[in-house]
């Protein structure tokens, strides 16, 4: 009896929890939306335009090789409402970026969601989650 009750309750819990993760996709099927990673490095470029603002960051790996990451954020309108401006990032800025990386292993990521953020060397944080 106890075993049946336990099994039944586990299935109910699984179903309820699974329902919560079925959020709408954001056109980001190329990215691993289950996991975030944080990279750190030097801004090389910041493009303020549709469809999504993009910024590019030189990241040194543990062997000292530099890889240029391409990071997608949100449309300029959404960025502006999250307190970004077209000069929020400048080449040379030292930042860390929390993002969802491309599933194919390319140095490309998406930061324009609830979990994405940019942290500057002085501790300032810019996110992109307000709508």
């Amino acid at each position: 009896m106890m075993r049946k009750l336990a099994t039944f309750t586990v299935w109910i819990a699984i179903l309820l929890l699974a329902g919560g993760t079925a959020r709408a996709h954001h056109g980001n099927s190329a990215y691993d939306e289950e996991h975030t990673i944080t990279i750190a490095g030097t801004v090389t470029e910041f493009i303020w335009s549709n469809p999504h603002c993009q910024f590019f960051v030189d990241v040194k790996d543990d062997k000292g090789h530099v890889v240029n990451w391409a990071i997608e954020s949100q449309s300029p309108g959404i960025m502006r409402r999250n307190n970004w401006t077209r000069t929020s990032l400048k080449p040379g800025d030292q930042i860390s970026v929390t993002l969802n990386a491309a599933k194919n292993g390319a140095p490309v990521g998406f930061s324009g969601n609830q979990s994405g953020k940019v942290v500057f060397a002085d501790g300032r944080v810019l996110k992109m989650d307000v709508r």
Partner: protein
Amino acid sequence: MRRDRLYFLTYWTATFAAVLAFSSVARSQADQQHAVSKTSVAPAPKHNLSGVWQLRGTGGAESFAPEEGMPPMTPWAQAKFDAAKPGYGSRAAPGGNDPILQCDPMGFPRVMLMPTPYEFVHTPTRVLQFFEREHEWRSIWTDGRSLPKEPDPTWYGYAIGHWEGDITFVVESTGFTDRTWITPTGYPHSEAMRVTERYQRVDRDTILYNISVTDPMSYAKPITGPQRIMKLKPGAEIDELPCVWSDENEFTKRIREPAASKSAK
């Protein structure tokens, strides 16, 4: 004895997890009600939707009705659906043939469910609805005219509107080109599509939005979306954000293609 204890622990852990999951659903429903009744006490002005409004949604592009709520399609519509390769939903894949990737206008009702705002402006004979997305707009005629019998198909359709009571604006529209998807997930529509929307401004800051789509050339039954909330953004200004072909191309080269390529780095 030990086995009984294991089942006992499993039962209580699972119950706890289920309660947590259920309470997050209940909390989001409570948030919806809170958004309507407690956030703002100022009443809605009469016959007035002026201002910048924002969908309270998931934060990304949404379909006006969920995939599991879509009715059976006609063979014509099914063929179009099968040919669509969207970037959203259960069939999402990198790349694809979404017409907006070429800067085709998003069209209606797809543009309504974007995480970007729109603005209503009243004139004596029309309500103008400006969409930040694509810097597009449509006229909703309020001078008592009927919908045209044979409209020229356009990207944003032909709309008429009237008030029911003091706070509910009802919009009927038709005359849509069939080149657009009605959802980001690639659902099609024909030129026979008719859209009905209700904007019920329940208080100064809140619209309850309902939409239904009737298209017998495509779907066996009308499609009704779940009620949604739109919130007023006082003082907000919508941006000028047209789809620019050269910017789309650059974005595709520098972001979309590297993220989608089959060969690993």
